[in-house]
């Protein structure tokens, strides 16, 4: 990640000296409408939410139509919980309680088609503390400090909240795995490409322990959400852990958070 940042630096240099950018009109082909499912079970008390929505054309406004009337269940801890649609397209559990080490299965039926996914909730890792570092142009970046357990593969997701709200357009969202860091005490700088982290706000960082398939999904998602240019591969839809041809993902994960005020 850091390599990529340094690397993009050169590009930035050339660009800032010589380059230019402009908004252009491109005519994009429209694809069939796709079903999008996102759902989470975690180790905090429920209810847990599953969202079902649809894709739209590129030129449409960012209103993604909710899908109502779906039949949604999550099976785990030996029970099957049928979710209730309390808001259009948002489905909630009744009695399910997420436990680390358990396997959870999601089933969504829409118009006679079934979509299924499973995810195993990893053992929790505690987020010890938040510290900060100053980057270029005095941007403030939070650092998440925690002990990675030795001998197991761990996958982490970080979500940042400023004054209780997620950052605009999914920023402040990143993932990390211990492939090259097993058993280390981790000081992970969260480069979030955002100016939401500034003095005067209360910053909350939520660290989720996720399973491998979810990590792969979120990692690919962050790749296609990058600059889309110089050092990126050809973009492709992230590999979903949901079978049946839906976009999105289903995650059973643990949650550990820290909140600090930035002065």
């Amino acid at each position, binding site marked *: 990640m850091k390599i990529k940042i340094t690397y993009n630096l050169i590009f930035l240099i050339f660009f800032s000296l010589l380059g230019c950018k402009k908004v*252009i009109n491109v005519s994009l082909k429209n694809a069939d*409408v796709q079903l999008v499912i996102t759902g989470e079970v975690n180790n905090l008390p429920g209810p847990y939410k599953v969202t079902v929505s649809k894709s739209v054309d590129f030129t449409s406004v960012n209103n993604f139509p909710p899908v109502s009337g779906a039949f949604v269940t999550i099976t785990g801890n030996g029970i099957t919980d049928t979710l209730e649609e309390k808001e259009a397209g948002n489905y909630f559990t009744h009695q399910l309680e997420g436990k680390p080490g358990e396997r959870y299965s999601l089933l969504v039926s829409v118009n006679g088609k079934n979509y299924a996914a499973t995810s195993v909730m990893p053992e929790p890792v505690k987020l010890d503390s938040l510290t900060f570092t100053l980057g270029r142009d005095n941007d403030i970046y939070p650092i998440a400090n925690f002990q990675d357990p030795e001998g197991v593969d761990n996958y982490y997701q970080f979500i940042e909240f400023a004054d209780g709200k997620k950052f605009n357009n999914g920023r402040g969202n990143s993932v990390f795995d211990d492939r090259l860091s097993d058993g280390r005490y981790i000081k992970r700088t969260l480069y979030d490409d955002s100016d939401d982290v500034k003095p005067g706000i209360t910053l909350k960082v939520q660290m989720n322990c996720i399973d491998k398939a979810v990590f792969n999904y979120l990692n690919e998602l962050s790749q296609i959400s990058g600059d889309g240019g110089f050092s990126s591969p*050809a973009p492709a839809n992230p590999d979903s852990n949901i079978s049946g041809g839906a976009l999105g993902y289903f995650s059973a994960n643990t949650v550990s958070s820290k909140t600090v005020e930035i002065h």
Partner: protein
Amino acid sequence: MKKGFFLTVALFTVLLSFAQQKYTINGTIRDQKTGETLIGATIVLVGNNTYSVLSNAYGFYSITAPKNDYVLLATFSGYENDTLKVSLSKDRTLNLDLKPRPTQLQEVVISSRKNDITQTLPGMQKISMTEIKNVPVLFGEKDILKTIQLLPGIKSAGEGSSGFFVRGGAADQNLILLDEATVYNASHLLGFFSTFNSDAIKDVTIYKGDMPAQYGGRLSSLLDIKMKDGDDKKYKVTGGIGLISSRLNVEGPIVKNKGSFMISARRTYADLFLKLSHDSSVNQSIIYFYDLNAKANYQFNPNNRVYLSGYFGKDVLGYSNQFGIQWGNSTGTIRWNHIFNNKLFSNTSFIYSNYNYNISINQTNNKLFILSRIKDLSVKEDLQYFAGSSNKVNFGFNITRHIFTPGNIKTSASSSFNSLILPDKYAFDGAAYVSDEWALNDRLKFNSGLRISMFAMVGPGDFYTYDSSGSIKTTETYASGKIVKSYLRAEPRFAATYQLNDFSSVKASYSRNVQNLHLLSNSTGSNPTDLWIPSSNNVKPEIADQFSAGYYRNFGNNKYEFSGEVYYKNLQNQIDYKNGAILVANQLVESQLVFGKGRAYGLELYARKKVGKLNGWISYTLSRTERKIESVNQNNWYPATQDQTHNLAIVAIYQLNKKWTFSSDFVFNTGNAVTWPSGKYEVNGRTVFYYAERNGYRMPANNRLDVSATLEGKKTKKFEGSWTFALYNVYGRENPYFVQFRDDPTDPQKTQAVQYSLFRWVPSVTYNFKF
């Protein structure tokens, strides 16, 4: 019975030698002024019959003809012809020194150069250093790799990039040799400069797939670059001072007429300008490169000459002292030319090549150092046997030992990362070849060759096989030197040339190339951290079969030349990557790959005016390049990223008078095939784009005009100076570099496409000198 047989043989031998009474002239062709050997000069013996031959890579020639009186004619582009009467009644050695034609105001010299249309392999092109000098380029730094991109069939990897694609091949399918040594990364500064300092270069030849059997190991092309030997008559200093880089070249005799040396150095200082920027992310950045070419040669006696050549280059970039990446090539070659007899020429090379990069991250609590490297040691033996008046045989072998260091990570005790040493990998790469250039008669020539290539991956190490999901299926441990997997491949090559008349010919060829080193590069740009991997138990050798044919014609007393070529290329075992592939510091990197095939076909037209005040060329390519990769686009054929339907380049150089030379180039090409969204959806509050197919869209087309003007200063016997003023992208066209899709910053309810362009109106000025 036995006696009778021997008698018959003896009789035949006598009869044959009587009938033929052939003698051989051999020698070396040089520049009269500097003593540089001339590569590819034509030597013709004109008598009752005509015999001709080209000088080889070391200026050596050998020509055999029946006893007779002849006129010997030696010609080389940019030089006065040399003619002398030769009465051939015994073997002789004839070293020829050609006089360079003055570069100013060339008279229209029309030489008997019909051989141009017949002597070369189809798809082979040479570009002269004068042309490279005159073609305007970005930042005013004359550049071999950017100039060859103006030839048909060769495409640029991106605006301002020294990376190139030949006939639909990938960037790693070009074999780039500098004095026989492989250059693994031919670019500086992310590709904006090539690693070749043109001051140090004598000869550039590109073979677009039909390479001589002597060479192999890459699918698409051979770019054969030869460094200058150095002036063996007098000391000379040349150099240039530009806005962002400077060059200095020193050459001279070691022992007059016997040996010479050449040292050439170049350094950019772009980072000095960065300090002027107000942007702290820019003014604290470090960005420069330097390179050094050195060569020496010495002739011990007429039959033995030794050359030493080396290249060393390095790029450094970073941000304050927090991050840094350095990368560079170093190569070294020792060559020994030996003339066994007047027909047999031998060159033995010992070659070293090293490419490495290292990354250091130096933050208070996170220190990290990464090293990766590829190192080669080779022995190469090439022999040329000038068998007779119509036959030349090349044969030889080479063996290379590759050592790959995929990644060593060292970290401090408090770092978030573990130290990790990915074990080195070892491979042997060898080939034996024989090829024959045979002139059946005055009109018909054949060039046939066979190359047998062998590649073996050897232990020590653990070697894996993977299941379809990419998990390890089996692990096997091999002891040091034990063969894990080996591949033996035959690479036949064949070309035929038929001369229709004095000014036109047709050629056809077939060739197979095999590639055993593969560059893993999962990005659109060229990264120094891209990883070379060998063929292995999981990665099969890439194979290309190319069929090509062409028509060649000279017009107007050889003032103009025209060629039209068509090709079809079939590619096997092409490499692509899984979604989200992890290529960095991954011992299981082979599990991240997917495989497929490719095909490319096209038409290349090239017209050139070679002499006169106005010269230059027009090149046009119409082509298609497709890939079919497992699980991409439902296993259908799709356009490869480098697929460009149209590609046009026009280069014009005009010498107004002794003082001023103007030049320009214009390029137009269809945009690359790109993957753009076909919809959008939402995940975790983020707008995510939906992709329906790989490379289903086209970037907007590119076009650009560059101009330059060179003003020669007063010439004295001791000193010459010139100024070159250039303007890149004259009409400031915003050529698309990439297009980003994002939420509209002013209206988060909307999304937009943003086009980034790199270079508009880049002026440059360079001062060149020589004393």
